[in-house]
């Protein structure tokens, strides 16, 4: 009973998510691209980086990247804390 209700809710949510995605813009034809065009135009000129994505990852959106490295470090710390050798007090 409860399970059926949850599955129905999941169907509704999935349908709604699909509705959102489908109405954002048609595939292959983004409506507005001012920010991306700025990056495409300036990545090589200002930063002399051939790869636009790398220049985005490490320069324009570098702060996200340090957050991402921090997430990886956090997961690492958590896994090592879970599987630490117990009993030793330091």
């Amino acid at each position, binding site marked *: 009973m*409860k*399970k059926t*209700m*949850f599955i129905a*809710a*999941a169907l*509704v*949510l999935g349908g*709604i998510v699909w509705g959102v995605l489908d109405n954002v813009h048609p595939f292959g034809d983004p409506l507005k691209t001012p920010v991306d065009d700025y990056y495409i135009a300036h990545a090589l000129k200002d930063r002399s980086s051939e790869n636009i994505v790398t220049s985005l990852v490490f320069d324009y959106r570098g702060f996200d990247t340090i957050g991402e490295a921090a997430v990886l470090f956090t997961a690492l710390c958590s896994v090592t804390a879970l599987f630490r050798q117990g009993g030793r007090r330091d």
Partner: protein
Amino acid sequence: MLGKIYTGFGFWDVSAWIAFFFIASFYALWLRSMGRRDYKKGTDQDEIYWSGNPVPEDGADITVPASSAYWGYKKAFTPFYNALVAFHSGITTDYAGWFVFVSAVICALAVIF
């Protein structure tokens, strides 16, 4: 610093409450000083009135456990609490299911309105 805070209906002032606190404590001390002076420690006056219940031995712990507090309240609302405790079932997928359910309801409301 100790100004007033207006809430729309009235105001709130701490200094009034501090004054009230001092007045109330003086009044309590005055009441206490009016009490009887013939109270003696270690006599029968100290004993707990057990009213027919079994008297525990000396040195036993005599506290009311927390599970027994508000017994009547819990007894009165038993059906409500049965449903509510069953709701907190401890099954992870149920919790996720409720989350998905509420999200679906909110999204459906967004579509309707």
